[in-house]
């Protein structure tokens, strides 16, 4: 029988689709998004974070008082219609200061996380990718550094450098990158033996390009989780440092320094501690929920 062109016409598309079993194909990130949305706690956390960020942006302008405006006639006022969160011992509006502090605290959290990301990914990436003696030396350094109690490191760094926001970023970044470097190295070690990396190598890609374009993007899952959990940790540590008198200095305010001031006055004016403490705790919770939600969403095999 002669095979004519007519015999080779494709089937009607619609018929094929009717036979298909299963749902539309989703990409990895679409899956992640959907799993994340199903997690109620994580979504609540996300909404809280968005609200906090919005309030940090507009909050300081809402009450009509600036963060450093002092009013000696209105010292230590309880919350009222003019001062929604009350005033502090210098008559400054706590509502404005709390949201101004939110800016600083969130900034500390986010910038530290970014710094840690950059240092950790580069260091861990290089160590894991090149392996051998390079890896050996780089990881020994990490191990030695991480055997020093990290809060002592932070305190020492804060003591030598001039006080200020920049110092806080540097001190926290200088300490927290260790864990990130370990995490990234582990991921890179696992990925670098894969065929697609070999393919890139054969095509003549430089090690840096392979690392940045091919390996790192595939390690993003655990890294994002670590970064999300890094943010509350940094806010926590900043609060702790502020309490020791090593954080931001007045009239600037972070939640830590506000809470620290509040602690001094707790018996007489408890609201001065209540508001910053409440928002620190809410932020911790929200970021931890989102971090856990991301971890579950990014790893389909993760146990619930």
């Amino acid at each position: 029988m002669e095979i004519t062109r007519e015999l080779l016409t494709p089937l009607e598309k619609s018929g094929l689709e009717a036979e298909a079993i299963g749902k539309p194909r989703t990409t990895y990130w679409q899956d992640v998004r959907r799993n994340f949305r199903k997690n109620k706690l994580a979504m609540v956390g996300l909404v809280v974070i968005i609200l906090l960020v919005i309030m940090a942006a507009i909050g300081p302008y809402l009450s009509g008082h600036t963060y450093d405006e002092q009013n000696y006639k209105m010292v230590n006022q309880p919350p009222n219609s003019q001062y929604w969160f009350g005033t502090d011992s210098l008559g400054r509006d706590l509502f404005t200061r709390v949201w101004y502090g939110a800016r600083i605290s969130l900034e500390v959290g986010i910038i530290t996380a970014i710094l840690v990301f950059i240092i950790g990914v580069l260091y861990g990436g290089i160590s894991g990718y090149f392996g051998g003696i390079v890896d050996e030396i780089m990881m020994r350094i990490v191990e030695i550094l991480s055997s020093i109690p990290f809060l002592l490191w932070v305190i020492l760094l804060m003591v030598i450098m001039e006080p200020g926001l920049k110092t806080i970023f540097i001190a926290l970044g200088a300490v927290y990158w260790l864990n990130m470097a370990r995490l990234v190295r582990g991921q890179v070690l696992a990925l670098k033996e894969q065929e697609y990396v070999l393919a890139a190598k054969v095509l003549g890609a430089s090690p840096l390009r392979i690392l940045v374009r091919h390996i790192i993007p595939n390690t993003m899952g655990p890294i994002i989780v670590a970064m999300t959990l890094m943010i509350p940790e940094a806010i926590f540590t900043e609060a702790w440092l502020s309490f020791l008198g090593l954080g931001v200095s007045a009239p600037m305010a972070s939640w830590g320094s506000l809470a620290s001031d509040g602690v001094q006055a707790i018996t007489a004016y408890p609201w001065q501690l209540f508001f910053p403490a409440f928002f620190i705790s809410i932020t911790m919770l929200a970021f931890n929920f989102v971090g856990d939600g991301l971890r579950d969403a990014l790893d389909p095999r993760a146990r619930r």
Partner: protein
Amino acid sequence: MGRFLLQRLTYMLVALLLIITFTFILMHVVPGGPFASEKQLPESVMKNLNEKFHLNDPLWLQYVKYLQQLLKGDLGVSFKYEGRTVNDFIKNGFPVSATLGAVSVMIALIFGISLGIISALNQNKWQDYIATIFATIGFSVPSFIMASLLMYFFAYKIKLFPTAMWGTPAHVVLPAIALATLPTAFISRIVRSNMIEVLQQDYIKTARAKGMSERVVIYKHALKNAILPVVTYLGPLIAGVFTGSFVVEKIFAIPGIGRDFVISIVNRDYGLILGLTVFYAAFLMLMNLLVDLSYALIDPRIKLTRKEG
């Protein structure tokens, strides 16, 4: 075993040397630091300083002398309180801090493990939810806020415990609880998830099949394996409790070295800061080493020669 010990010990010594070198450099480069040359000091003070710290020697010789002095166990002197050495501070303050730390660790272990077991045995029931809520609060409230709140409610409002100072067992309660909150939460989560996992393993089924009572199965067979990971957490736990006590000792005005350390930071008393830092570093690293060793002894599955990162 020997190799493992040697490796850990080497790391520890290198890390310690690093901290010491760092603190030494610190003394000499900090603007406005104790030995900054631009500062105008009276002739006699300068002379005393020079004599005490050999400032006229070349830098490397000063460093060697500093090391020798540390090797002899002399951690230096306070720059603020004349005539008081760092060793004096430690002798007075360390027993206090150690007592507080030990009580906190005990509280964290007892409550953390109990909560974890209760949670695991009543998975997704109300007991589990209450334990989860407690752990969540523990995770999200910083220790200094917890300390202040405890003081406000239990010492100021209902006067159950003293607000501050040190001396009787009642003085230990509130600060120890404040310090133990976070680790308790953490331990309860570790024990919960491990207990759930362990209870599904075959040897537990075997034990049950052999007709052992539920009590024996849980407390004799399952618990042992479920709390093993807690031992690895002991190192960070001890470090956390001791560094956490900086703020808690400050709030409750407890005369421990944590408070001394905070005061030395406020005063920029470099001599005391550096001495106490070296002491803390050495102490906490030693603790870590002991924890590592005990872990290796407790769990025969751990390979001693090489520790995977």
